[in-house]
């Protein structure tokens, strides 16, 4: 039988896998958009856009990366809007959700004041910001899940 420690470790690997996949997608997006920007800013036709596979990959990533942020936001809102049914443990569950709302609110405000302000000042792409926001939200959700399951 799998121990609780092993399950927690596996969850850590799952989070690491999600983050790695998002970072790889961001790297690919950055490299392709860098090449296209370099060509276009010098008045040249980018050879990357002539290649069908690269062109499709770039546009797919451009559409999917901000969607990841929207999905993560939606999942977080669904979790915290959940109204627990009346029962013996509903008081405990409501308390955990209340604490988690405060915890996430603090981190979201901290994120908006630091990364959001920096991104707005230096003009970071919404795609890049979206990926980092999604990573933060996934972390918060997994920590919240750990709080409910393990209690620490």
């Amino acid at each position: 039988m799998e121990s609780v420690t092993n399950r927690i470790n596996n969850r850590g690997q799952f989070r690491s896998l999600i983050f790695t996949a998002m970072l790889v997608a961001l790297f690919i997006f950055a490299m392709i958009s860098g090449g296209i920007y370099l060509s276009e800013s010098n008045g040249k036709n980018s050879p990357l856009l002539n290649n069908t596979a690269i062109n499709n990959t770039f546009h797919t990533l451009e559409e999917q990366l901000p969607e990841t942020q929207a999905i993560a936001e939606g999942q977080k809102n669904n979790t915290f809007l959940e109204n627990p049914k009346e029962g013996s443990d509903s008081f405990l569950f409501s308390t955990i959700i209340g604490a988690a709302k405060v915890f996430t609110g603090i981190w979201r405000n901290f994120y908006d004041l630091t990364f959001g302000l920096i991104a707005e000042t230096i003009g970071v792409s919404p795609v890049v910001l979206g990926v980092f926001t999604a990573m933060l939200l996934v972390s918060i959700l997994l920590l919240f899940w750990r709080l409910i399951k393990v209690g620490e």
Partner: protein
Amino acid sequence: MIFKTYQTFVEYNQTGASATLTYVASVVPIFIPVLLFSFFIISLLSSYYFTKRFGGNGNFMGSFAVAGYLTTLVAFSMTLIDGLINTTTVVTCLVVAIVGTLMLLFTNR
């Protein structure tokens, strides 16, 4: 013995410093891919043995990714000169950089 007659630089009829590179690229099409491959190998081995000598143990995946990025950067720079590099070579460099990124991020967890 039959020798192939190459186009001379005078016949190429281009001016500017970039003509020295585009002339070679047009006469010997494999020149730019071989040049980029050499750059990739030199960057890879330099980075690997540098980390091995000064850090104790080398990081092959990291060196591969760094060499891929540098080669892609050089390939992107070459696209600014018309007729120097073709699309296939640029895309190949980009794919090598992506493979390097995948290996680096998925194996060093």
